[in-house]
């Protein structure tokens, strides 16, 4: 964290995006996390993605649970409403918020303790329902705020800072998300902004449950030899299957690529994601193959990153529920209350 308070005043020449905001307008309060924490890099990536995508900050709702990662929504998008809810229960609060107003962008930020341990159930069910959201897990395999206990994503055989070996099998959030019906699944590394920013942009544009698992090393409790969530370990084992160049419908695709190395994925709202393949024959739209591939590579000890899966024809909970286009929180008595005439009729039918 930085102890220097940044001045509120912006330099008049700071570049503004199309909606009139500088990058600084997307910042939040000063982080209170440890210096070097992966989570701060993720906050920076979120800021970058939102600024570049020209999202009005106040049209974003940031929700989180409890833990280090869940504190971060205070550190980005200061002009957005935020909700630091109950440990492991952000998904339900986000689902309810989303039902109330379908027009905002919902960003759920959680950690591995919050989503894989206490909140595994809610994580699973919001993926199943296809809630339209960006769900980021800042995954460090450890409980930071309570000082170094293993979380449920810690790899079997990995060692804690105090030298204790973890004997429990790890929970693979990406595998779960795929199995449970998430329609956008990515994995990245907090130390790889070039990969992470486009992934967040893709997730924002995606309609439906978008999940990004971000390896985000804990410098205080899980960055030692023997950890599989340290900066060094993740760098050494990181195998990207593709590079995502996020292209919205507004931009023209001009760059030249060697044939067969680029796939353009057009989503249902017309936005285009351009994927540069790094792994041969990797098809990010074939869910079964993706699941098999990830299992194989995980067994080989690789941390596979990139846009792992996307369903271009995804739908979301509002579509399933067939809710009206106008946000439910804007409906008034006139639209909601059947009135006394209907009640009289009903009374008559109950005699």
């Amino acid at each position: 964290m930085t102890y220097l308070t940044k001045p509120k005043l912006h330099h008049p020449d700071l570049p503004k995006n199309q909606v009139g905001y500088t990058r600084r307008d997307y910042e939040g309060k000063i982080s209170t996390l440890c210096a070097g924490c992966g989570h701060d890099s993720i906050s920076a990536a979120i800021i970058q993605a939102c600024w570049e995508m020209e999202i009005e900050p106040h049209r974003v709702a940031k929700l989180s649970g409890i833990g280090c990662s869940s504190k971060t929504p205070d550190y980005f998008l200061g002009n957005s409403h935020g909700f630091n809810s109950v440990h492991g229960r952000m998904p339900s609060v986000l689902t309810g918020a989303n039902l109330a107003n379908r027009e905002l962008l919902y960003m759920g930020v959680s950690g591995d303790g919050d989503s894989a341990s206490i909140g595994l159930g809610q994580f699973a069910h919001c993926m199943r329902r296809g809630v339209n959201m960006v769900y980021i897990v800042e995954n460090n395999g450890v409980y930071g705020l309570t000082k170094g206990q293993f979380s449920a994503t810690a790899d079997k055989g990995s060692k804690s800072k105090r030298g204790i070996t973890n004997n429990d099998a790890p929970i693979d959030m990406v595998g779960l998300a795929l199995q449970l019906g998430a329609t956008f699944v990515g994995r990245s590394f907090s130390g790889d902004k070039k990969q992470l920013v486009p992934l967040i942009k893709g997730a924002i544009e995606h309609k439906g449950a978008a999940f990004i698992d971000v390896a985000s090393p804990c410098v205080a409790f899980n960055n030692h030899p023997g950890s599989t969530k340290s900066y060094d370990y993740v760098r050494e084992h990181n195998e990207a299957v593709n590079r995502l160049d996020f292209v919205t419908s507004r931009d023209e695709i001009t760059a030249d690529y060697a044939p067969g190395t680029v796939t353009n994925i057009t989503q249902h709202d017309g936005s285009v994601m351009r994927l540069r393949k790094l792994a041969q024959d990797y098809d990010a739209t074939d869910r079964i193959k993706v699941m098999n591939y990830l299992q194989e590579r995980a067994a080989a000890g690789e941390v596979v990153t990139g846009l792992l899966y996307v369903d271009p024809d995804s739908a979301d909970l509002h579509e399933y529920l067939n809710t009206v286009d106008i946000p439910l929180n804007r409906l008034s008595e006139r639209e909601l209350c059947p009135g006394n005439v209907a009640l009289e009729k009903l009374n008559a039918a109950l005699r």
Partner: protein
Amino acid sequence: MRIEATNDFVVKFANVNGSGSASANELFARAILRMGVPVSPRNIFPSNIQGLPTWYEVRVCEAGYQGRRGGIDLMVAMNPQTWDADVKELEAGGYLFYDNTKPLPKSKFRDDINVIGMPLTEICNATYSDPRQRQLFKNIIYVGALSALLEIDPNEIERLFSEQYKGKEALLKSNAKALRLGRDYALANLNCPLGIRVKRANAVGNKIFLEGNNAAALGAVYGGATVCAWYPITPSSSLAESFIKHCQKYRVDPATGKQKYAIVQAEDELASIGMVIGAGWNGARAFTTTSGPGISLMTEFIGLAYFAEIPAVIIDVQRGGPSTGMPTRTQQSDVLACAYASHGDTKHVLLFPEDPRECFEFSAKALDLAERLQTPIFVLTDLDIGMNTRLCAPLEWDDKQAYDRGKVMTSEELEAGKDFGRYNDVDGDGIPYRTYPGTHPTRGSYFTRGTTKNRYAQYSETGPDYIYNVQRLLRKFETAKKLVPVPLLYPAAKPARFGAIFYGSTSPAMQEALDVLAERGIHVNALRVRGFPFPDEIADFVASHPWVFVIEQNRDAQLKTLLVTEAKVNQTRLLSVLHYDGTPITARFIVEQISQHAAARSVVPLKKAVS
């Protein structure tokens, strides 16, 4: 000896769960209602789908008392499993109607009751070949027989058939045939009518007949709930399911076919309340419905909604606790659990409806209160009200009344420079302003959290900020006192030394008990509590009586505890009358308890007697 009574008796049907008896029994009750005679039926059922015993108890009472009376005058004993207990339950001089296709030994009967045997199985087997038809029509055949035995107008039953099977001629005919089969047999072979009978009257008026859960769901529709998240649990599931039905009827945009509501069957009660809180935070009216075990699971979230000040409505259809308890029996045993739900210093607003009409009214009101007070509001109904069809005054709605959306700062106000402090008490009533997410580009956003904060919603663990906040919450609770439904006084006809406080589903039994007690010369002023925090009238009421009975359907006198703790009433004046075996409280029970207490406290002291 036989019981003689017109329009004042109790019939109990002993059936096997899943045998199709429920609709036949309801038909019986409705036919009597159509003759202008009030009935109050109660389902007594096990936590089971098929095979276990189930009962349907119908009280016929021209005077209009709808509480459970206690005692049975006619037992329709259709379940061999429960025969002995069913026979035993009959009042002396009562009637036992049974299927005598297979003869039973004399030891299976009692000498002091009147036995009416009818070969139901034999008649069914002779008439129908399909086993399911044999089963289903057996129920209609006994209703036919009862119509003759009790002088129920068969035309009323046939009219009900024609309403129910509109456009389904075959079903209509076959049911009418079964009805006549039973009725004709009874008229030809049984001694009709019995000493108990129904006589056409005019005591129903414009009352309506519906279940509390259905009414509460309708209240949520009228009150503007757009988000409902729930998890199935007896006895609340039918509330959510009724909400689905009402929404399909009233809340679909005719032009687009799209829904002006969102209902999610959540993965558990934690998620249900989480979704309600998320929706409430984001400015939609939202509710969940559950029962005791669900409340236990929700408590952490309830604390968040209390402390972060987020509107939420929780309709708790209470059942017998603790733990899984008696899932299909009734109690008022979640009062304290709801009043103080969650860790730390919390207290919550409670509403106590007495019947389906108030279920409708209070669930709509709860949605207003939740937004006005920015806090969870509990509607504490119970299985007795929720899952039984009850006669009550017609539902009313004033089209002129607008929803009270509470203190919400608008984009225009923010733009004009109005100071926004999310937890700042600007009006002195403890209620701060809130903003909906997405309101204004640069003003009015804030960070919602369960941790302590200052009045501008910034994280703060300093003592003064904490104290400011929790004291303000107390002020808000004071404000709530003026907003909850006022208690209703039922004054005695003559000056009374005794007072009685009651609430919720105890109401019909209590009102009957008050009449009976008055006849016996025990005059009691009664007060029906309808909301918590307790309005000041309640403490005044207690103070103006040397003795006040507190009638409750739980073991530990939960409302009394709340009265002593929160209304600061003198607890030595309070005498508990507690009924908690899972059956609905009866007037008989209340009368007996109060009479005993009254007798013990009416003895004239020796000194006074002598002087």
